[in-house]
């Protein structure tokens, strides 16, 4: 009977340390209160029917003490928790890309070289893996207890998160957000493999059509190239080298073109109008499937190979912006 799941990611150790600290605090205060209550109940039990209690004066100091001490403790918890949380919010730049499509009651995982897997994911150990996830119907949640990794996959946007496996093995994959009848069957396995095994596995499988090429086909099908072509005076902004670049908008702000920006500009094209171009792009809300949006994003990312590597440039300072959301 073990009380902690396997620690199989860089993140797991930090979370468990924090967990043990909170357990210590919980145990201490529960015991403190429990013992005090039992001791007082026994020591001051009513011995005769009309026995009266003893006068006890209220003490403001005591009240301040047991307000400040809990406050300090919870603030320590907060800062420690926030630091652990920030560790996972930014994918490192050397992460490999996996595109995940969640559909009612199964996970479709696609590697950039086109290899597709169902409810299973093979990743090399010691290599950060960035998941770009989209849902085709309801909210799902990609949860790997061994990595202490969980991220809701909300339909209507990309959910980007990452993990780095540190221990080869076979780990549970669960869907953690209730998503319907077979919610408990939407499970799978993450296979963390040593580099040698991973190479062998890669060699064994036959890579299918890469996402980027599927995206290119879809780019033409939806007549995107009529405006976003490379010819002079094209009506839409050129997409070469777009990914990762800062884009100046009509309202004067600049935005970093990440996956979310690409998706929003397809689905809700009027949200961020690029400077120097008329707002004539139709909105493709509900016209392109999640699969298609993933492919288009992969295609556009492939148009700027340099940018793809340093997609998550650390230097970008927070760009406060007019209210915008990714529905």
């Amino acid at each position, binding site marked *: 009977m073990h009380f902690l799941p396997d620690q199989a990611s860089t993140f797991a150790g930090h979370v468990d340390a924090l967990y043990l600290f909170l357990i210590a605090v919980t145990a201490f205060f529960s015991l403190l209160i429990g013992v005090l209550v039992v001791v007082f109940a026994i020591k001051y039990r009513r011995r005769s029917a009309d026995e009266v209690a003893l006068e006890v004066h209220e003490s403001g100091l005591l009240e301040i003490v047991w307000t400040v001490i809990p406050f300090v403790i919870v603030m320590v918890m907060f800062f420690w928790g926030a*630091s652990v949380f*920030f*560790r996972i*919010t*930014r994918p*490192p730049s050397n992460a490999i890309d996996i595109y995940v499509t969640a559909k009612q009651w199964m996970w479709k995982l696609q590697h950039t070289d086109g290899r597709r897997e169902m409810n299973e994911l093979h990743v090399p150990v010691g290599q950060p893996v960035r998941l770009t996830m989209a849902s085709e119907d309801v909210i799902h949640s990609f949860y790997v207890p061994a990595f202490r990794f969980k991220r809701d996959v909300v339909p209507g946007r990309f959910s980007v998160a990452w993990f780095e496996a540190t221990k080869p093995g076979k780990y549970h994959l669960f869907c953690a957000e209730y998503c319907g009848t077979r919610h408990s069957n939407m499970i799978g396995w993450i296979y963390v493999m040593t580099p040698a095994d991973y190479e062998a596995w890669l060699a064994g499988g036959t890579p299918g059509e890469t996402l980027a090429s599927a995206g290119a086909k879809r780019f033409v099908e939806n007549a995107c190239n009529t405006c976003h072509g490379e010819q002079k005076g094209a009506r839409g902004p050129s997409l070469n080298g777009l990914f990762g670049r800062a884009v100046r908008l009509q309202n004067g702000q600049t*935005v*970093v073109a990440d996956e*979310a920006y690409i998706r929003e500009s397809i689905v809700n094209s009027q949200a961020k109008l690029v400077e120097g171009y008329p707002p004539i792009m139709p909105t493709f809300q509900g016209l392109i499937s999640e699969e298609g949006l993933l492919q288009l994003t992969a295609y556009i990312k492939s148009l700027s190979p340099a940018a793809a590597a340093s997609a998550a440039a*650390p230097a*970008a*300072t*927070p*760009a*406060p*912006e007019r*209210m*915008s*959301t*990714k529905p």
Partner: protein
Amino acid sequence: MSRQDNGHGSLGAYFGVFAALMVLTALTLWAAFQHLGIWNTPVALAIATTKAVMVVLIFMHLRSSPRLTAIVVATSVLFLAFLLLVTASDYLTRTWIPIYFR
């Protein structure tokens, strides 16, 4: 406290507020067609809030009601502000790139 009635506005106050509301309605209509850039919405909301405050103070005679009623009204506005601002804060900061923490 207000003039002759036991705590309720007089006729003059009612007609005065009515006139003011009409003027403000005309003003907000006019202002809507002016190009004030990002100030269009704040101006419209400011006018609407003024009209609402006048209705509450005079028509609903909050001015001559016990202080507790004013506290109740303030609480509703405060908690509505909680709902609006905290929800909006999520949407506003969603595109901010988190500080890089390694």
